[in-house]
């Protein structure tokens, strides 16, 4: 957009007039430069800051005789993660002396493992969802920290809430682990732990698990 300087018409009578300087400054190069800089900054800016999820592992004890804490078997839900995005679950505990519990195959979709977790954690999930709804609609006004605390209290309130044990074998990917921990957050499950997989469970994985069955409806 270079400025076109119009030649003035033929001067009359040979009189020399002082040239009128235009008050315009040619801003085109400046605009070009600014365009470039803006593009550069727009492309290099990292808008989304990385997020992080907290995870607490049980303390390791050196004492080999230390017993694992007893967990009520009827509250336990075991999730087994394997390679190729495969995921299985079973209820209760696997005891070598008793017949093995049924291993059910599911998937990471929202109709898969999430449905099962929600069903088990119905009471807490409802309570937490109600509380959040109230805060969202403005019925209840509270600070974020208070909301967090109340949510925690609600999570603890249900004495029958499931305890989820997450066990991954060597073929599992890191993504699978994060996905499952994320499901815990989505379905507001308070008690979960990442546990080492037992040989018995490996054997169950190696065997032929029951093919996908529709989730049990209560």
């Amino acid at each position, binding site marked *: 957009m270079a400025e076109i300087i119009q030649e003035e018409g033929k001067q009359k009578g040979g009189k020399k007039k002082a040239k009128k300087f235009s008050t315009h400054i040619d801003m085109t190069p400046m605009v070009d430069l600014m365009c470039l800089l803006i593009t550069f900054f727009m492309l290099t800016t990292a808008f989304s800051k990385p997020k*992080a999820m907290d995870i607490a592992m049980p303390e390791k004890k050196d004492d080999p005789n230390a017993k694992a804490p007893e967990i009520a078997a009827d509250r336990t839900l075991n999730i087994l993660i394997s390679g190729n995005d495969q995921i299985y679950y079973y209820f209760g505990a696997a005891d070598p002396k008793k017949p093995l519990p049924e291993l059910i195959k599911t998937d990471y979709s929202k109709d898969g493992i999430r449905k099962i977790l929600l069903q088990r954690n119905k009471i807490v999930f409802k309570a937490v969802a109600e509380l959040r709804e109230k805060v969202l609609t403005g019925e209840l006004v509270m600070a974020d920290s208070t909301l967090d605390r109340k949510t925690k209290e609600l999570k603890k309130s249900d004495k029958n809430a499931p305890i989820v044990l997450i066990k991954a074998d060597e073929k599992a990917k890191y993504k699978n682990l994060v996905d499952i921990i994320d499901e815990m957050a989505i379905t507001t499950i308070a008690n979960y732990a990442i546990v080492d997989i037992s040989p018995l469970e490996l054997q169950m994985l190696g065997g032929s698990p029951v093919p996908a069955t529709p989730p049990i409806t209560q």
Partner: protein
Amino acid sequence: MPKIKLPVKSPHIDMTPMVDLFALLLTFFMLTTSFRPQEATVIDSPSSISEKVAPDKDVITILVGKDNKVYLNFDNGADTATLIRKEVLKKIAEQYSLTFTEKEMNTFANLSSFGMPAKSLKAWINTEDSKEKELLQTGIPIDSTDNQLNLWVRFIRIQNPNAVVAIKGDADADYKAVKQVMDILQENQVNKFNLVTTLVKEEAKLEE
């Protein structure tokens, strides 16, 4: 009929408002930009619904790459470059009977994440060529025979007991490698850590 005289328009456009706008945008971007820290490898973190912002100071970041190589970075906020990184490097040098000149230590202090056995640290610090630098990044050894990550974590935590640990794993990294890293952390009495993720909104609905 009288002729309508059209005023002769100059082909010149007044660009002042445009320039104003550009200047504003430019200032905005310049002020809000936070440059992505340069990392030893490209890490594609998995997604989660967590909205907690990952810590950016007083943090030990352990990166687990796609190929299960382990990289390390530690940041202490203000005194990172002047103090912590040098002190930790000195300790590591002592452990593996290596010597670093003052200049090498200063260079190391200003670099970010790294992933190589202690013996190739010197070569990595002294190379200018980015391709060669990349070749030297073979991952920090984490197996039980030569557990260098363990030492690094220990020395960093002696220098800064408040440092939190963030694990930044690639979505395609093996669980086994991450688990190994977690075990090393637990050996160092770190039982709480952050898993770095990217935010994806998701919600569950209870079906009646």
